[in-house]
């Protein structure tokens, strides 16, 4: 019942059978202003069956478990939109799940064969020498098996197939997310229209967490601290690596603290490891602001920026994590009636951890605030 999850098969455009390519092309055309032609495998990820033009259906409870014929294996994404109908639509979005429908696409469906062990990934026959063809095909099957093994081993730590959901972002989402991070009091609607346990691409749901903004903010912070050091004539190339590993270590400490908090207070939340990684990475945007403020306004700039960044990240956390951690009023409680106070404490602890970590990591920044290169003093 469980198909092995290797959600990394590319959806080959030209190799698709003509019966389904018309459907795929029509949905592609509707959203062609959202993505470039260069990343075809991300554009079809987790889209609902209806064309997305900015208005999505609100989440009505009871409609999501009605999606037919998707068995919940490990790493399988149950992405049932409210208007999913018929198995034909799934083949465009679930390359790993296509063989379960009895190969409805026919012989032209190369991407469904990737889940069989040792299958060829559409090996092209380039050479005239048949022995070379066999060698190429064998090498490709070996590569496919190696990828399967790596994926299955990584699956124990976090679900690899849902990893690409977190990077399916577009410009509008990134702009909105940055505005949410820096000006959280402007945003009125924090609700998530899909159930929190389900994987949803951030392109469809503007309040869902993603991993693109945190990783970009992380790298920007390291580079910005390098620039600040350079302006003080204290830059060495080792600084970049040292900062990166230090920040990574603090991130690990923070995620461990959050996980132990969840275990001790015995709350079962919908926050998975990747969600936690995303949320703890959002504070790096505020830290970039602190570094830039130190560059231009010295120590007082750092203090004001730190205060503002702490307030906004606390606001952001409280509004966003409320959906995940605190039980909703309409949801049936699974036995822990006294759990509300514990969950509240856990949420407050995690939220208070953020400004503390921000201060801890950027503690050394204001010492570089007198910049002999620019001749500015505090």
């Amino acid at each position, binding site marked *: 019942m469980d198909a092995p999850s290797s959600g990394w098969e590319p959806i080959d455009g030209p190799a698709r059978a003509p019966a389904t390519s018309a459907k795929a092309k029509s949905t592609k055309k509707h959203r062609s202003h959202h993505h470039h032609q260069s990343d075809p495998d991300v554009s079809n990820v987790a889209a609902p069956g209806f064309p997305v033009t900015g208005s999505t259906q609100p989440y009505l409870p009871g409609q999501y478990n009605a999606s037919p014929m998707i068995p919940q294996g490990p790493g399988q994404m149950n992405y049932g939109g409210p208007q999913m109908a018929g198995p034909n639509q799934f083949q465009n979005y679930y390359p790993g799940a296509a063989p379960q429908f009895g190969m409805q696409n026919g012989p032209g469906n190369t991407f469904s064969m990737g889940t069989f062990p040792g299958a060829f990934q559409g090996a092209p026959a380039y050479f005239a020498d048949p022995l070379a063809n066999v060698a190429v095909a064998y090498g490709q099957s070996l590569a496919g098996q190696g990828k399967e093994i790596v994926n299955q081993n990584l699956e124990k730590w976090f679900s690899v197939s849902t990893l690409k959901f977190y990077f399916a972002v577009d410009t509008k989402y990134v702009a909105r997310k940055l505005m949410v991070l820096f000006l959280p009091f402007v945003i009125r609607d924090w609700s998530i229209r899909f159930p929190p346990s389900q994987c949803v691409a951030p392109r469809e749901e503007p309040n869902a967490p993603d991993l693109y903004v945190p990783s970009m903010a992380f790298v920007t912070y390291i580079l910005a601290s390098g620039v600040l050091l350079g302006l003080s004539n204290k830059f060495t190339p080792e600084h970049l690596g040292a900062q990166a590993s230090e920040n990574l*270590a603090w991130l*690990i400490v923070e995620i461990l603290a959050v996980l132990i908090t969840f*275990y*001790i207070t015995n709350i079962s939340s919908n926050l998975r490891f990747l969600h936690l990684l995303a949320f703890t990475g959002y504070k790096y945007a505020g830290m970039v602001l602190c570094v830039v403020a130190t560059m231009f306004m010295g120590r007082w700039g750092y203090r004001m920026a730190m205060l503002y960044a702490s307030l906004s990240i606390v606001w952001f956390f409280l509004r966003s994590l409320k959906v995940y951690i605190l039980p909703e009023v309409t949801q049936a409680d699974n036995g822990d009636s006294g759990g509300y106070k*514990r969950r509240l404490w856990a949420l407050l602890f995690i939220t208070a951890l953020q400004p503390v970590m921000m201060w801890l990591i950027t503690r050394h920044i204001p010492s570089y605030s007198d910049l002999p290169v620019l001749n500015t003093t505090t």
Partner: protein
Amino acid sequence: MTFTLYSLLEAALLVVNAIAVLNEERFLRKIGWGRDTVQPGAAYYQGGYASPQSTKSQIINLVNSVRTVMRFPLILLNTATIILLVLAG
């Protein structure tokens, strides 16, 4: 002061060592954190002392499981760290 990944490993090793040296009889039972307060059917538990879901019983379970699981690997890890620090300063 850079906080490298190696310092993280050292700190984690020290914390796990600290958890492992907590003596069950002489210390934990004296402060009411003994293992028998969370086992079902124990004398304390009859009076509803610590329900299995409470924070305290989770911490006690965590401490006990860390001590049970890490008793043997800690010997190896400590020996390796001692040798490493003696050789490398």
